[in-house]
């Protein structure tokens, strides 16, 4: 149910008149949060910024949900990359030592291999993800939305007992 709600909301957002930039921004921020272990200072900051600004929150949470699974798959890659950066790249050792001695350092968990690996990957891919998602939203609205709405799959889903039951429960007056 939770997953269906997510997908449904996200699709609604894609169809709505909201700016593609804000939706793509939310998606990118969600990508950054979802990729790394949640409880870090940088993730909390990103979330605060998203709440305080007009970034689309549905796309943010959708991206967190999706990229948490992606992160699970790529976890060993992040660990290896993080270990290389933190422990094997001697030239960065003084920098890490300086950061490690800063008062806020423990909250960022930058010295964790998975946090470091996923953060680096996230930062490197953030801009391409933003561009790709923004152009994807525009294209979806222009070309794919009507086709998708009329597709057999969507009709089958909408016609299913499960979906109808979900809609009934969702629209119940409490």
């Amino acid at each position, binding site marked *: 149910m939770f997953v269906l709600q997510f997908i449904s909301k996200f699709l609604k957002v894609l169809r709505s008149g909201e700016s593609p930039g804000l939706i793509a921004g939310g998606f990118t921020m969600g990508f950054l949060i979802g990729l790394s*272990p949640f409880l870090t200072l940088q993730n909390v900051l990103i979330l*605060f910024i998203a709440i*305080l600004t007009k970034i689309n929150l549905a796309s943010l949470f959708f991206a967190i949900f999706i990229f948490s699974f992606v992160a699970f798959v790529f976890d*060993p890659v992040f660990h290896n990359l993080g270990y290389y950066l933190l422990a094997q790249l001697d030239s960065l050792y003084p920098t890490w030592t300086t950061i490690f001695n800063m*008062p*806020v350092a423990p909250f960022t968990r930058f010295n964790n291999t*998975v946090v470091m690996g996923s953060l680096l990957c996230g930062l490197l891919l953030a801009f391409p993800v933003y561009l790709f998602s923004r152009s994807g939203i525009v294209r979806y609205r222009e070309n794919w939305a009507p086709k998708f709405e009329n597709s057999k799959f969507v009709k089958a889903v909408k016609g299913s007992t499960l979906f109808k039951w979900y809609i009934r429960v969702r629209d119940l007056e409490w």
Partner: protein
Amino acid sequence: MRTKGIIGLLVVVAIIGAVFYFLSDKFIENTIEELATDMLGAQVEIDNLDFSLAGLSISMDRLQATNPNDTWKNLFETGRLAFDMEVAPLARKKINIKEVTVADIRLGTKRQTDGKLEKPKAAEEPGWFGDATAGLKKQVVEAPVLNLGILKKKVNVDSLLSAFDIQTLRKIDSARKDADATFNNWDKTLAEFRPQEDLAKIAKDIEALKAKKVSNASDLLSAAEKSRGIIATLNALKKDVAAKKKAATSDLRRVSTIFSEVDNWLADDFNSIKAKANIGEFSAQNIGTMLFGEVVVNPVLQWLGYINMGRKYMPIAQKFMASGKVEKPPRFAGQNIKFPLLNNQPEFLLENILVSAATNQDDTSHVLSLSGEMHGITSQPKVYGSPLTFALNADMPGSNSYNVSGELDHTGEEEIDRFRVTATGVRLGNIALPEKPYLPNRIAADTGNITATLGLVGDKLDVKIEFKANPVKFDFADAGPDNSSVFKMTRSVFDSIDELTFVAGISGSANNLSLKISSNIDAILAERIKGVVGESARLARSEIHKKLVQQIAPRKQAALTFVSKNKARITGELDRVEQSIDEQLQVVNTKLKEVEAEINNKKDQGVKDVKDKLKGLFKKKKN
């Protein structure tokens, strides 16, 4: 800006803040109470703890720690306490408290409730403390009992010996069996070793060599070659015999050594019988341990318990740098890489505790002043870099004074812990002694002086306690097992003593501690005991020894004869073989020398012949 978002965030922050505000005090109070209770092994309670987030300060109305040995009393109880925590270390989950001042501390106050733990503290893991406790308690328990009454009765030596399993006889039998097996083994080895056949063949070769006529150089060289071959064979044989002789000597020596222990076995049996009949020698050392063993060991174990707690919560080894890559950490867990902290601080640090208190402040002539300091209480001594030190003083003007100081140095590779206690003019009152026949069960003393030092380096313990009390009076529970002359004698000894002094020492590794206690009573009491019961005990001991020797001597003699006979036989056999080889070797060497001399003669004769022929040739040419 999203107005709703800001409001939502503010609401969330406000709720978290409110929850923290209302629950933090109780949470911190419970956490500290649980931790301290676990450390002490009895209830530790805090009243009205207040945590202020603004200044990161903590205050409490009262802290009371139960005495684990008497749970209806407090070890200490404080008045209001307040201290501040350092802000920066908290970011790293480190608690750093600069100073706590305890201005109103009371010792041994009565509790409203029993401070006993509902769930008893889990048993300690086996380690040095367990070893030391078991070892010292065993020595106290095994201290001999002054059971002198038995000596009044005639000791029936025959029935005593018949009921006693004499170990020496068993050991002699076992040693004889072992010797028998060793001799059989050598008999078998010597039977399989047949150098006589080799020697006979060699003798034959030598005879042939002697008989052979040597007419030319070729014969000579052949004879020399043969001689050398015989010598090589003989040398190999000799080497083999020497090796066998060496092994035999070692085996036979072992057998002899076992039998040389017979007298020690007999002594052990004799001591066991004496202990069983309770007619052992009463040394001064025994008396000290009998009387004051428990009195000395119990406080020492209490101090060791504190050290054990210190070692548990202030461990020496700390590893900070990651030792290597963790290949497969759990998903999303990763591996934390540690970097050096430029201004590293321990996880928990209470730098200074200052204690000052005074009792009966209305009457300054009878005020007991208490003051003390404790520095460097930390969970990571190596990071902090300095040992925990403490010094506590309590004194009343013109009366008693106490001084306890020490240090727990866990900053190096090995723990070094030291305690020093000095108490002068201590009002002792009644000191309970363990219930033992013929001995007092209580000392009533006026005042006393105590000096004690305790050092524990790794698991090596060194304790020295000096005690002096004056005047003292010894109380006896009743008239003793009987109102005998022995009892009257021991009582008269204790009645004559007005001052008690003793020196106790405990030293050695935790698993092998030696407890020694000597007091001014020891020598007097030992002398008097010897005087009263010495003669009858001596006679009984002498008879036991005589009968024991009578039983053991024949079997010992038979075993020794058996060993000596077989030993001589095997050694003689090997000597004979060795001698025979030496003789043959001598003969061959002589023959070899003869052959070599012959070769040299022949060589000289040949050279002379050539010279003569050359001279003859020159003469013919001249003519």
